[in-house]
């Protein structure tokens, strides 16, 4: 203990702003205790620096100090391996504000990779989260996982192998996910029960589903809205669904490019969407039973425009997809809307504007009633004006991290 304290003191050097320190941790024995101690000792303004090398960890790490940067030597140089994890759900849990996690990798956590709960201004920059055995049901659920957070920045991250979503933002607001790569996850990127997300310039490939924008009932934060999904490459999402049953993403059909479920004001534009066998874009209602009186299960005020569509929807895998394909003579359009426009808990009539096409409108009378589908194909759907949500603006210091 004493020996260790002295080592830490020696490693502690004044840097940058007055009083701000860098606490350096190096690989080796007792890495668990040394990293965790640095995360406990850090004071606001400090940097916890994880030197290059591999760290074999047995328990989840956590940070609860505001204004701290946790920084490695690069996502292929500083590797936190949780292969031998014995306890706690996630790799690193952040519960404080104005925290930046950058330039390191987290591998093989038993649960989620990097999580923040209730953080304001949480940034994930140039990090890698990976399950190294490839897609497996036993992999952890989420790779990069901010939840109940505000001002979220995910930039230049790489996530592979998550058994739920690679990058998952839940019950949060003011969100930027950009320049990241998600592959071999069940869902590449998922924005759930959240407000104001900009998801752009990402590469989302070889997942089951590419980018999901969902809203679910019975959660403390509900009524997701105002997202822009643009300039992403959503390509070849062809990994069979390996999510454990029961999870909402276990119902995502393989080859769903971009999927919007039960949300409002979602704009999908200027993406390149190619090689997704179920659909390029799907707009669907929440189909499971719920008793939440405040929940709206329909997608509404959705815009799909100016996307570059390659070959998609040649073999749709959603429930009833094969029957519909047969009804349509074997050729299924790349954009699909379930066509549900009214619901007891949805005010007015749900509107969409889909200017990319052709569009398959299933004209379902109610969520999930695929057996009552009256499929119709039109070049486009709807001409309503739906104002585009304003660009997400993060606080300046945080935005600068992602410049």
């Amino acid at each position: 203990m004493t020996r260790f304290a002295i080592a830490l003191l020696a490693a502690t050097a004044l840097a940058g702003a007055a009083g701000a320190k860098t606490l350096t941790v190096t690989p080796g024995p007792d890495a668990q205790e040394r990293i965790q101690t640095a995360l406990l000792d850090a004071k606001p303004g400090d940097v916890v620096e994880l030197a290059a090398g591999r760290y074999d960890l047995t328990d989840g790490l956590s940070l609860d100090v505001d204004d701290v940067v946790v920084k490695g030597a690069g996502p292929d140089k500083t590797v936190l391996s949780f292969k031998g994890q014995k306890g706690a759900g996630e790799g690193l849990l952040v519960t404080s504000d104005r925290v930046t996690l950058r330039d390191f990798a987290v591998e093989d956590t038993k649960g989620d990779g990097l999580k923040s709960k209730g953080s304001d201004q949480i940034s994930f920059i140039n990090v890698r989260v990976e399950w190294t055995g490839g897609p497996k049901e036993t992999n952890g659920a989420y790779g990069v996982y901010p939840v109940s957070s505000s001002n979220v920045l995910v930039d230049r991250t790489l996530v592979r192998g998550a058994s739920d979503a690679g990058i998952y933002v839940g019950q949060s607001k003011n969100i930027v996910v950009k320049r990241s790569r998600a592959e071999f996850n069940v869902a590449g990127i998922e924005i759930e029960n959240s407000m104001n997300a900009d998801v752009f310039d990402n590469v989302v490939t070889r997942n089951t589903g590419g980018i999901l924008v969902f809203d679910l009932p019975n959660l403390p934060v509900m009524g997701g809205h105002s997202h822009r999904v643009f300039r992403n490459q959503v390509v070849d999402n062809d990994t069979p669904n390996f999510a454990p049953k029961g999870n909402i993403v276990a119902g995502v059909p393989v080859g769903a490019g971009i999927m919007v479920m039960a949300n409002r004001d979602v704009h999908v534009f200027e993406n390149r969407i190619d090689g997704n066998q179920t659909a390029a874009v799907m707009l669907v209602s929440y189909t499971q039973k719920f008793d939440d009186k405040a929940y709206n299960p329909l997608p509404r005020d959705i815009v799909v425009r100016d996307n570059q569509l390659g070959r998609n929807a040649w073999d749709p895998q959603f429930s009833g997809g094969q029957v519909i394909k047969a009804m349509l003579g074997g050729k299924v359009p790349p954009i699909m809307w379930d066509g549900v426009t009214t619901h007891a808990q949805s005010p007015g009539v749900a509107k969409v504007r889909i200017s990319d096409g052709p569009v398959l409108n299933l004209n379902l009378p109610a969520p999930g009633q695929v057996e009552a589908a009256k499929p119709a194909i039109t070049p486009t759907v709807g001409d309503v004006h739906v104002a585009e949500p304003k660009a997400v603006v993060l606080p300046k210091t945080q935005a600068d991290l992602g410049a």
Partner: protein
Amino acid sequence: MRLGLALLAALASLGAAPKPEPVALEALLAEAPAPRLSDYRLFADAAGRRPNGGVTPYALNTPLFTDYAEKFRYLYLPPGAKARYRADGVFDFPVGAALVKTFAYPADLRRPDQQVRYLETRLLVRKADGWVALAYVWNAEQTEAVLKRAGARFEVAFTDGQGAQRRIDYAVPNQNQCKECHQLDRTLQPVGPKARNLNGDFAYATGPENQLAHWTRQGLLAGAPPPGRAPRTVRWDDPAEPLEARARAYLDANCAHCHQPRAIASNSGLFLNVEETRPSHLGVGKGPVAAGRGSGGLSVGIAPGRPDASILAFRMASNEPGVMMPELGRSLVHDEGVRLIREWIAAMPAS
């Protein structure tokens, strides 16, 4: 009663010892935590077996399961200070209060008074600006406990109540992990000492007495009604109590520190605190939100009448990180707890 006997034995030996210095309130209130547990003088002996003057043992009707560890709990209040009674939530403790909990294993759980090894003593100290959580780990000689902020693991072997050998990898939580379970509205709070969980008899050296009555009589607690008018959580393992009440008491003690609207698992929408009445938030027919493989391939938290189809029972019956719940504080499955929750689910009318 067991504890009472141990305490009596301890008190008997006290007579021979010189009167110890009082509890070091200034050490409890110092900004930096003391490096050794003995610095606080909460105990009259180096081994931490005999509480010092002003340190009162207590027990909870339904406690958290921690790998079958024995827990010895104590309350310290500064001289003349009182806790204020609240019917709901934990009491309002004065600055300087300390809640002390030692985790220990007898070599054989069937002989709980013999060969008891202390592993760690955790403190929750009420400072002027809030609670602080600290863990002190005992040495092998059982003569000293030192501060461990970053957590620790060590092997513990014991014989369980059925005579089976158990070997566990015991985990001392790191300081943030203390806070994960002990936070309410993002501030650190005690979990156990609520009126309803203290409202029961304790075997004091002077004889059994209701704890609320005893604390009031000793001047430790102000504003408490007579025990009969205070809320009471049942003992989860008392077969004389209704199944529903036992199950809800168990879930409240073992899950609700995280699974309630104001704590760290609020985003799950699964609320297992005793106050919750909405079936969907208790898990009935509720799909998982962020469970991942913790779902076990099952669709809902609770499927009434069908424990095998209920994620709640599945995760309690696992000891695999990433699947098991709670995710901190245990490595073994609490067989008796799982049995109780399965019985409760089985008894729910299937709709």
